[in-house]
């Protein structure tokens, strides 16, 4: 119980940037093919749909789309990414042609590589 509390506290401080999260060295794409697939989907889209990269900047993907929000700044969590892909937001249309699996992979990828 006590160690779980400590772990939550350390994670929170790490999120605030107060301490370095020494045990975390960024997503390992080799060990996690879903993240690699997420990047591929982000950059290339699913024809004939436009790719996320066309509108959004995301450092990990090397994209500099400048029409929609910069995802490195927005740092959306996976649920928000999935909700916006499915339902659209503002001028962004809903990407209803994507499968549940594709949405999940994209949501996980974007939230993982932008995690503070």
């Amino acid at each position, binding site marked *: 119980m006590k160690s779980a509390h400590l772990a939550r506290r350390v994670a929170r401080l790490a999120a*605030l*940037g*107060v301490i370095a999260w020494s045990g975390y060295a960024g997503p390992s794409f080799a060990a996690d093919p879903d993240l690699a697939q997420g990047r591929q989907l982000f950059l290339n889209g699913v024809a004939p749909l*436009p790719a996320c990269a*066309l*509108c959004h900047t995301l450092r990990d993907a090397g994209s500099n*789309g*400048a*029409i*929609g*929000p*910069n995802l490195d*700044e*927005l740092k959306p969590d996976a649920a*928000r990414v999935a*909700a*916006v892909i*499915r*339902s*659209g*937001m*503002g*001028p*962004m*249309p*809903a990407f209803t042609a994507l499968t549940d699996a594709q949405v999940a992979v994209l949501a996980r990828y974007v939230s993982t590589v932008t995690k503070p």
Partner: protein
Amino acid sequence: MALAGLAPWQQAFAQEARPLPAYAAWKDASAMIVHSANTIELRRTAMGDGVITPARQLYVRNNLNPPNADILNDRDAWKVQVDGVRRPRTLTLAELKKMPTETVTMVLQCSGNGRGMFPSKPSGTPWQVGAAGCVMWTGVPVRELVRTLGGADAGARFLTGTGGEVIPAGLDPKTRVERSVPLAAMEDAIVAWELNGQPIPLAHGGPLRLIVPGFTGVNSVKYVKRIALTSAESDSSIQQTDYRMSAPDAKAMNPADPSVWQMPPKSWINSPLPESGKLRAGPAVIKGVAFGGTNSVKQVEVSTDGGATWKVARLVGPDLGRFAWREFAADVDLSAGTHQLASRVTDVKGRTQPEARIENKAGYLNTSWRDHSVTVTVA
């Protein structure tokens, strides 16, 4: 090192504060909360007592990133196409400036202002009260423009504005910022090129913006390049699948749900606030702003006991018309203890600001007086 005297957790938060984006770098940084590059609001503590909000303190909400600033290099050359009239044509800003002009003072308020007070935490910017300001716009009345071009086409039911953001090739054209409002709004709408007496900055839609008084900010289309009187609402995503009053549990916005258009009556207190410092028991003045959306303010009441009793406040400052907000003030006696301060406005049509917000999926149009109340401690 300004941060040197702060505790580590304070430094962490101080470092988290985002800088103003380049296109809004001229804003008063100390008065603004930067949620993201395209969502910037005014702090409640910085609302001040003057009726007009200076441009440097006016909130920013861009639905797409703004166009390149070079569109301001030759403002007079900016073109707007007018359709849905007997004689459709393209006019330059220089030509518009030769027509009869009007100035309207109005509350510009983001549809989601107050979203941050929804316990359901809807997706979107958690605005408090600062995604609003009272500003003056100058330009040509749309009704004059339409009259000059021979009148509206038969069957026109909506006034539709299209923004000039550059949409990359390959994107669905429905991604454009295009909003439609009921045609009746044309009587009050203007095509504006000045904000508070100066050319409209890029952050606020310059060189030319369609202004729809009484409606939420999204309906006043920035960088307007086309104005059309149309028989149907725009098919854009921002018209059809967002800015709708959909049920909180709806999976997605339903285009059949009511569009977010006119603003309902709303008020809030700007002084005193919990941040105002220690309050001493005795006489105090409660101050704030109140507006009726599309109607003039009839009365503002304030409460110091969380809405159990109410007292009529006095309206101060100039009455700048039915679309502007009124400053209000109420003299009260505050005893030692904790007080929940609240305000509620009634417009001349008898609509009173409600206690409860209307729950909706995206957290739009929060006018709840209880949500906007503040709790202060008096020593």
